[in-house]
């Protein structure tokens, strides 16, 4: 996805020294083209947070995903340590981590199902139930809040016609409130699937939603 208008192409505190395009700021040369087999094991765990098109019945794991799984295992002295990246890999494929997925991961890593459920439910990024094609996370913590994050959140709820935390009727959007996304210099920060949208104002929301709707990619 590209060419979303965003008002501050640079880092917060841009000195105007460089004339930057959005692609350069985002590092498009580096982002989004990771090989599906994960490339070098050192980075094989870095992956899309969520794909737009999910397959809740995708196998854990086959083909290139299997290769990625194997590479992740090589990076740690024991199998347990691979749990977080492997859960992320399962979520990338299936869109959320159901109880059944947790049990399958437990089998793969020779851990008890109860243990894996305990770990999975500790972390907020694992969706315990299905979410829309786009998971919209609006930061409402202090720095964004001072600059109007509550209004941005309301605008997303209005334009997607979704209840907070629920998925819109068309299955496209789930809107939730997020804790600080560490982009406080670009308020309000909104994370939509893997991508950060910065300096979002209520006036930008309609445009972002319209832009996302027809597209089929993350």
């Amino acid at each position, binding site marked *: 996805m590209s060419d979303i208008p965003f008002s501050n192409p640079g880092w917060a*505190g841009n000195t105007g020294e460089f004339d*930057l395009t959005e692609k350069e700021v985002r*590092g498009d040369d580096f982002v989004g083209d990771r090989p599906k087999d994960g490339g070098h094991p050192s980075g094989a765990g*870095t992956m899309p947070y969520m794909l737009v098109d999910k397959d809740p019945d995708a196998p854990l794991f086959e083909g290139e995903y299997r290769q990625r799984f194997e590479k992740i295992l090589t990076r740690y002295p024991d199998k347990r*340590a691979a749990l977080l990246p492997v859960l992320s890999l399962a979520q990338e494929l299936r869109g959320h981590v159901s109880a059944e997925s947790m049990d399958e991961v437990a089998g793969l890593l020779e851990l008890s199902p109860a243990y894996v459920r305990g770990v999975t439910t500790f972390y907020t990024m694992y969706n315990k139930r299905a979410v829309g094609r786009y998971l919209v996370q609006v930061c409402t913590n202090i720095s964004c809040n001072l600059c109007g994050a509550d209004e941005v959140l309301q605008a997303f709820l209005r334009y997607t016609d979704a209840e907070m935390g629920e998925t819109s009727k068309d299955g496209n959007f789930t809107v939730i409130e997020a804790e600080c996304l560490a*982009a*406080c210099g670009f308020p309000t920060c909104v994370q939509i699937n893997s991508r950060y949208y910065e300096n979002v104002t209520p006036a930008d929301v309609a445009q972002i939603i319209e832009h996302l709707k027809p597209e089929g990619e993350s």
Partner: protein
Amino acid sequence: MRVISTHFGDPLQRRLGTYVERGGYEALKKAFSMGPDEVVETVKASGLRGRGGAGFPTGVKWSFMPKEATKPHYLLCNADESEPGTFKDRELMRWDPHQLIEGCLIAAYAIRAKHAYIYCRGEFFETNQVVARAVEDAYEKGYAGEDIFGSGNDIAVTVHQGAGAYICGEETGLMNSLEGRRGEPRVKPPFPAAVGVFGMPSTINNVETLAAVPHIVNNGEEWYRQWGTESSPGTKLFCVSGHINKPGNYELPLGFPLSELIDDVCGGIRNGNGLKAVIPGGSSVAILNSEEARRCRLDYEGCIDVGTMLGCASVIVMDDTTDIVKQVRRMVDFYAHESCGQCTPCREGSAWAAQIMKRIEIGEGTVEDLDTLMEVTEQMVGTTICVLSDSVAPPVQSSIQKFRADYLALISEQESAGAT
């Protein structure tokens, strides 16, 4: 003046070729020629203090590691940036990933570790891809992995993504999380240098700390000490956000006056409004009123002098239109959400404080609620495994002490409504 942020905004800096052309990885070569102990001594002499919030001297931390690696040692880079108001590590990683990788390699060498894990915040998907690509490039060109530049030193670097939990920024919580456990902090002692990740001696440093290391090794301790104060040497990234005309990351010498940062460097407060309050170090430190902010110097001691802490230098500026009660309530909600739940004072205290704050915010509070808040937060300090619990007290207590009128205004509305 920029040391670690020199190349912010230059997309070419992400490329290994450019980084090397500009003198990158020279510090690593130099470190290999110095030997681990001399590297530790240099960093110790530079006075570099941990940039993650606690400000512990980095070289001293490194010197706690066993001198002989009879067991595997690990270097951990804490890139789980999530303190509200802090946004420096993401910029350091996405603009200058090799600077961080070189810092990790030098630190790993100094503590005799053969494996460095960069624990990246899970939400930083885009940033993590930049770092992962840089690590891959470093492997490909022989700057990481086995027998780096033919020196016989093997150091593996792994990018590990977290999965969303503020508490994993706490050092032992991070270690548990890296081991595939719930990110619950551990009781210390044993300290990480004795028993860290995977039960082995480990050192954990913040991204900004490690980013400064190559520069110190290259230029020596005296060079680094030209900035800052005697006890807080060097430069620091200040993350300025909130009601400010030019929010951003500004690299400045430690000891810089807060008022100059707000008025001159950041172009003043939005709409020409007056200053109401400033949080100088992220959401976990005491709020300053405008008078205290005027005389605050931004170094570790200067902040303590005005009753707060530098933390990770996340300056959150609030103008005179700010609803302090709402903002403190939002911060307390954050801690209630992020408490890992191990220790009762934190789990219960943060949840109850959040409910009381909410009650006051919607006009249903009483004057006694303020005393209850003070008491509840007082009991959250020093009674738990980690300092997340301790972090709830400063914003609540300082706001009640300094902005009591704001609280009373909400309460008296309710009381007069009840009287009618």
